[in-house]
């Protein structure tokens, strides 16, 4: 006969009291589990220290990576497997674990019998699975009169206390129903989400993840396929792409004798730091006379913000002309920039960039003639949608310029 509270005790015959056992509180059962984990975790860590060392290193160096997730999940899996055996062996041999023994808790069979190995192992295995899903099953302890969780029901076991009985307050049926509902809903939702996540992550092996991390290096394609000059032009075009240029320059500097273009790229990128710029210029002048002359003119431009007649070096003409065209457009010297742009064959993106830059400056100045002339060129090369976007901010004086001249690309 199972006693739930002292009220029943009073109704029992003396002879029945020999077979009585009492339940520990949910709090004591929970604390017992915590103590078991606290005792077992260091032992587990000592046994598997090589693996946990990898986990710790990855946590520092690559914390958000798939490799970290793989190590974490594998550690969790190993811990659960070892904990199953720890619990099973303790329950089989003593009917209790170390944590449970402190709170005088014991696990017995339904008919107050000693546990068999099958019961101990099944109970521990199901317990570990339930713990994987946040251990919500412990809510069952207070939800059911029998105070049995799923692992107790499946293994046909009962958790009892060896202490003197205390008076338990009977739980209302409405509270039990509410707790059961929370448990069932949360258990299924969380189980579904967690299972999906675990399966997808744990399918990758350590080797595959390391190989993937190597491939995922940013800018790998740009560094392989584009020259320093092209990357520098892209940087002038859109400075937010400086990461790839910096990476390329950094790799180029690892060669004993970097190309002059590498020095020029570093010089241009660091143009806002006077001391470093001067040192780069010294290095440029040691390697390339023409580039050194260009750098002198560049220094003059930075000081005066005026373009004197600049000689473009014979090598890397695309970059130098692009830079010249950009600077002269920004200075609103469109005649000069147009002359430069005629010398080099720009791709569509770069051409559009210059035209839109010119258009924006003209709109800002209120130079309607320049606006119209630029729009005329743009209407021939942009698509309908692109031209419509431009019309939103550029004032159009002529009705002819409202429609794009070219067909959609």
């Amino acid at each position, binding site marked *: 006969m199972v006693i739930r509270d002292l009220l029943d005790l009073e109704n029992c015959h003396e002879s029945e009291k020999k077979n009585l056992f009492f339940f520990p509180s949910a709090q004591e059962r929970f604390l017992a589990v915590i103590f078991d984990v606290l005792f077992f975790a260091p032992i587990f860590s000592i046994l598997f220290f090589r693996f946990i060392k990898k986990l710790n290193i990855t946590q520092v160096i690559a914390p958000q990576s798939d490799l970290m997730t793989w190590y974490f999940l594998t550690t969790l899996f190993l811990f659960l497997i070892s904990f199953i055996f720890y619990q099973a062996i303790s329950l089989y041999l003593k009917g209790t674990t170390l944590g449970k023994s402190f709170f005088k808790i014991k696990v017995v069979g339904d008919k107050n019998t000693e546990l068999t190995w099958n019961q101990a192992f099944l109970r521990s295995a199901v317990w570990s699975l339930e713990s994987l899903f946040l251990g919500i099953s412990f809510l069952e302890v207070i939800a059911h009169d029998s105070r049995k969780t799923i692992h107790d029901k499946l293994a046909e076991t009962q958790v009892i206390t060896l202490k003197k009985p205390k008076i338990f307050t009977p739980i209302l049926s409405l509270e039990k129903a509410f707790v059961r509902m929370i448990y069932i809903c949360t258990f299924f939702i969380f189980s579904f989400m967690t299972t999906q996540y675990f399966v997808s992550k744990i399918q990758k092996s350590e080797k595959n993840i390391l190989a993937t991390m190597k491939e995922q290096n940013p800018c790998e394609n740009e560094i392989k396929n584009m020259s320093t000059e092209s990357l520098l032009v892209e940087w002038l075009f859109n400075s937010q792409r400086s990461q790839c240029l910096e990476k390329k320059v950094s790799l180029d500097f690892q060669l004993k004798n970097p190309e002059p273009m590498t020095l020029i790229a570093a010089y241009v990128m660091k143009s806002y730091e006077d001391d470093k710029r001067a040192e*780069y210029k010294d290095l440029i002048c040691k390697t390339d006379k023409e580039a050194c002359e260009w750098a002198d003119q560049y220094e003059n431009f930075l000081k005066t913000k005026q373009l004197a007649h600049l000689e473009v070096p014979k090598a890397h003409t695309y970059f130098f002309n692009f830079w010249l065209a950009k600077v002269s457009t920004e200075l609103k010297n469109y005649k000069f920039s147009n002359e430069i742009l005629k010398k080099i064959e720009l791709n569509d993106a770069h051409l559009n960039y210059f035209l839109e830059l010119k258009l924006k400056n003209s709109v800002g100045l209120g130079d309607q003639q320049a606006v119209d002339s630029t729009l005329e060129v743009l209407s021939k090369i942009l698509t309908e949608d692109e031209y419509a976007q431009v019309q939103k901010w550029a004032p159009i004086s002529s009705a002819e310029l409202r429609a794009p001249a070219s067909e959609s690309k």
Partner: protein
Amino acid sequence: MIFPFLKGFPSFDKAPFTWMLVIVCLVVFLASADTKVNGAALRKISKSENLQLTGSMYKQYLQNKEKLSLFKNYMQIHTQASDQTFGKLALRDYEFLTQVSAYDFTADPVMLKSWKKDIADFMSFMKERPITIFGISAFSSNWKTLITYQFMHGGLLHLLSNMVILLLFGFMIEGLIGGVFFAALFLFSGFVGALFFVGMSGLSGAPMIGASGAISGLIAFYTASESRKNIRYLYFFSPIKTFYGFVYLPTWLIIPVCFAADIASYLATPVEIGGVAYAAHIGGGLFGLLAGAIYKFSWNETILKT
């Protein structure tokens, strides 16, 4: 969270030597703040772009070293975060820092020159810091630091956590063996902990400070001398009523909860990345265990004789 709470915090008159140690640690903490030392060098080297550069230089250095085996799987990761992490590791590697000026790195020569100067400034800064002068590190290999390190702490949380445990255990031990022996136990535990740290982990650029080694000795002493008693543990898992409180459990439980955890952490945490000196805890703990066993044995002998 579960830890031994024993009889709680004592008043000054019940544990004067314990309180004096706490006050000394507090005064030293306040006096040794970095405010007097110019931290510009530290701030500059700790900027993300400088850490990235330091990290990439450190990877070049590691390529030629045996230490590569610890980080070999991570050397191919060339992300900003990874380079910055290697930069932080580099600033702890004294051997690397001392070789920077002479090492033949291949990098942007202008950035390299500026970076080497920053590293030299950082080294000068580290040599002037109080925690480096009085803590155990490769920057100041002086035998006196084996004692002085116990009174230095790295931050308020570090200090508070150590002082709480010092008060809880110091009170009990001072009651057992008296104030003078208690102070001697504290100092010798810390000294032995320091020796273990130097022997097992070696000296690095990051100074080892804190009273944890000495406190581990106190905890171990109490565990050994009162192993059969049940003591009060405080547990706290949530603010909900039934999930915090006190429970009485055997003293010897401290061994798996504290010392086994320290051994596991020491084995599983490489010195290069570790932030806690587990070796000092282990050394101090072993000394405390030995002292506790001797105390218990000699106490029992005295009782038997009388």
